[in-house]
């Protein structure tokens, strides 16, 4: 491959990343030099502006580029796969910043400037994870996101829980990173390259030359290591403690952006690098690899949903629910169909709406009731009926009950799984979904059927109220007309050129 001069690339396509980088840098300088008189609210609003601008340029890229644009041997590549995930990250970060504007008023976080620009650097890491096809760059993106979120989690410096959770997050995160890196070293050792498209062919050769068990080991290390970011079994135990200790908007950021980034990285890496690797019989990815991912999915669904039953703290419950959702999101890859990409993106989109909705409502309640326990929700319906109705919509969406985006997302994933005749995983998914009704309706029970400590109307900040209502409306809207989203994904974000046609032969 011809090595091009660094100036011969059209760097304009990287504007979204540059904007985030630029804003993060400038805001940190602003924070340093502006002195105490500058309200830190301004930094939040500016970072929101940066996120929106970056989003605009992602759309520009989508309309200008009709094939992937590659920088320096795929170190960075702008393609539909990355763009779709970037839109999710940007939306998630924008939502997190919106929540933070209100959250930071409470004064639990002293370092408000750092809070915002660390969120931007975390976002930048996530964006790199979604738009690279090189092990080194991918790892740098992963670390950038991880390091930013370690600090973000610990920013409630006076809270013992926050300190504990940051410590746990760093330690377990480092172990997971080490495992991932170990897997990457196997991949490099077998293939002699860090470009995952080249890895793909070389792993095939390596497998055929008798190194297939090392290929399997590399896959297993990568899958297990990356399970940390998506909070799937076996690397899930950090989630409840970290969510509980983290500032609420950061918990939402971890639950959505960080998780989606983990998926973006894991799927591109595992799917491309190992796609051609030979298995014991036939394709490794469609047999042994799929089985491993399937077991992880099944364990995540079962453990996430059953452990959530016992939680009384809503943040911990959402963490276990997030583990279960990571399990659902692994199902489309066991093994993948042509629909897997739009399944995952649609599901993440519905999950994004509902999760931010839940965390926004939780934030309002936690401020008023001084507790994040389940009983804080008691009698919410009488105190803030619209908030309770919106919360009900989010919970129904997470539980997968129509009419909601979450229902169609699950329906869509099911369709893919059943098309692959993947009956055991579908059965587990259905059964654990029904189990999840119990704890999601546990919150609903509190809101409607239990008397609260007071009947006085709850004071809801106007901005948060509008935000929550819009999320609820969107959840219902995309439940009624999911076709709008799926058609958009297929028309504008279809990474068919990345993975080729994988529609299996159908026979029932």
């Amino acid at each position: 491959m011809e090595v091009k001069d660094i100036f011969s690339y059209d760097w304009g396509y990287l504007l979204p990343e540059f904007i985030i980088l630029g804003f993060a840098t400038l805001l940190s300088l602003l924070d340093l030099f502006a002195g105490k008189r500058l309200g830190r609210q301004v930094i939040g609003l500016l970072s929101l502006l940066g996120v929106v601008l970056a989003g605009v340029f992602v759309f520009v890229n989508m309309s200008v580029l009709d094939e992937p644009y590659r920088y320096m041997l795929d170190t960075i590549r702008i393609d539909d796969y990355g763009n779709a995930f970037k839109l999710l990250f940007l939306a998630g970060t924008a939502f997190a910043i919106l929540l933070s504007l209100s959250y930071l008023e409470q004064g639990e976080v002293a370092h408000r400037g750092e809070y915002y620009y660390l969120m931007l650097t975390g976002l930048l890491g996530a964006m790199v994870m979604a738009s690279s096809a090189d092990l080194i760059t991918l790892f740098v993106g992963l670390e950038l996101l991880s390091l930013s979120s370690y600090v973000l989690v610990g920013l409630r410096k006076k809270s013992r829980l926050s300190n504990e959770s940051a410590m746990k997050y760093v330690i377990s995160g480092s172990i997971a990173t080490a495992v991932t890196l170990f897997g990457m070293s196997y991949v490099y050792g077998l293939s002699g390259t860090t470009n995952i498209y080249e890895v793909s062919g070389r792993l095939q050769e390596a497998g055929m030359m008798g190194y297939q068990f090392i290929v399997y080991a590399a896959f297993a290390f990568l899958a297990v290591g990356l399970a940390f970011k998506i909070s799937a079994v076996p690397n899930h135990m950090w989630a409840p403690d970290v969510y509980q200790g983290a500032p609420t908007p950061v918990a939402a950021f971890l639950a959505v952006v960080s998780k989606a980034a983990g998926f973006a990285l894991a799927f591109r890496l595992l799917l491309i690098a190992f796609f051609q690797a030979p298995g014991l019989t036939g394709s490794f990815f469609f047999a042994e690899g799929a089985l491993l991912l399937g077991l992880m999915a099944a364990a995540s669904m079962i453990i996430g949903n059953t452990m959530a039953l016992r939680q009384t703290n809503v943040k911990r419950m959402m963490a276990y629910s997030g583990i279960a959702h990571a399990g659902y999101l692994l199902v489309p890859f066991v093994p993948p169909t042509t629909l897997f990409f739009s399944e995952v993106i649609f599901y993440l989109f519905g999950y994004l709406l509902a999760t931010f909705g839940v965390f926004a409502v939780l934030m309002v309640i936690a401020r008023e009731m001084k507790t994040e326990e389940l009983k804080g929700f008691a009698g919410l319906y009488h105190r803030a009926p619209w908030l309770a109705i919106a919360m009900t919509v989010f919970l129904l969406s997470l539980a997968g009950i129509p009419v909601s985006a979450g229902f169609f997302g699950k329906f869509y994933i099911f369709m893919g799984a059943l098309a692959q005749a993947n009956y055991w995983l579908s059965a587990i998914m259905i059964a654990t979904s029904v189990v999840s009704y119990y704890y999601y309706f546990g919150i609903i029970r509190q809101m409607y059927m239990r008397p609260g400590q007071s009947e006085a109307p709850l004071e809801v900040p106007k901005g948060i109220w509008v935000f929550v209502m819009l999320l609820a409306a969107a959840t219902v809207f995309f439940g009624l007309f999911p076709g709008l989203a799926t058609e958009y994904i297929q028309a504008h974000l279809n990474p068919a050129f990345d993975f080729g046609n994988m529609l299996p032969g159908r026979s029932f």
Partner: protein
Amino acid sequence: MQNSILLSSLVFSPLLAILVLAFIPGQKGGAIKRVGVLGTLLPLVLALVLFGSFDYTTPNPQFVERHNWISIPLGEGQSGEAVSFEINYELGVDGISMPLIVLTALIGTMAAIASWQVKKRLKEFFILFHVLLIGMLGVFASDNLFLFFIFFEMTLVPTYFLIGIWGYGEREHAANKFLLYNGIGSGIMLIAFILLFLVTQTMNMQELSNNLSSIAENVKPEIRFGLFLALFIAFAIKLPVFPFHTWMLKVHVQAPPSIVMIHSGILLKMGAYGLLRMGIGFFPEEAYRFATWLAVLGIINILYGAVLAFVQKDLKMVLAYSSISHMGIVLLGFAAMNTIGFQGAMFQAVSHGFISALLFFIVGVIWDRTNSSMLGDLGGLAKSMPFVSGIFLAGGMASLGLPGMSGFISEFLAFLGLFGNMPVLAAVGALGIVLTAVYLLRAILRITFGPTPERLSHLADAQPMEVIPMVVLLGFIILIGVYPAILGNALQQTLKSIVPIVTGIGG
């Protein structure tokens, strides 16, 4: 006929009441009740209009509506063409669903009147009630599996609230149990629906049924049987069939009376409807092979329900077990696998809808005055409440199958159908009829006759608002009993179109 908006306006007509209710302040209880009841008249009138212009001579769905809804592009198929799955918004009623829609609208109105005695949070109650009504009407009016599923689930959430907020003592427990059992049923149903969709590439019920028989050889027999079994279990939980019935007992005891009327009168019938329409309609051959099991399960339901009804101390439990017993007769009718048997089953579904709504309404009336439904606490009500007691006795008679009432004609048809194929099983099942008389008369006599205790001697008889549902429901019970053709004509053609396929393949 294409795209009349009649059915859509019927299904979504309760929205009008919801909108009006949303704008009435919560403390105006009287206005809310009036709107809540009047709001149910609109679907009732529309349902009757539809029934009036229903064409008895065709088995096909009528008043069909079809709009494009969701399109899932699949990329390229095996031969390179663009493939996409289409899910349409499709409504239509045939001879099976038409009577059930009338039943739904009618019992909806009666239950709304019964809700007069609801005391707290009226506004929410009636809004949820009307959402439930939309769901139920939609279930019977859907001609598309996806839409059917959405409406089916739409009945789940409001019912959960209605039981959990307005029920009796252990209401939350009952609501949870309801949610989990029905959630499992829906989940199994969803798997079956999606597999059917993948196999036949359509979700329209008619097309699906046709495709399924035309590509029969592409589908492995064990998958076919698995699909049939999945549909059977999904609807068996709803009906309910014997080991899946425990949730329904809790609901019948804990839910408020008007919701029990809806639940026992309509929601259970969704199970019967689904079994016939999908279980038997899509897989006639499998159903035919399964017929003996259907009959055995039916007999277990009949006898188990009857025997346990006999030993209950709570009138609600007597009636709940009686419902289980009567749903066994529906299964027997299905097991017959002929037009007469199917007619019996559907007659039983409709007739039991009216009868159980009436009986549970009366339980509510009695509870309202005495705060009890225990047989031991009650007695001699005939003296203080002669009208209520009379209607109660009449309802009981209808339930045990007195000729001239709807219960008789349905049991007669179901057993008539079954005796042709399985005389022994039919004979065992007929034993259940005798038991019905025993447990119902025991309960009714215990409550209405005998000496009147002092504290029960000054109870008020039925109020005008309570007379209406009693008279109307009893009127329909007798109407079907003496003029069964009003129901039979509608059912005839559609049932015929299902049955010949069965006997054609199996026999």
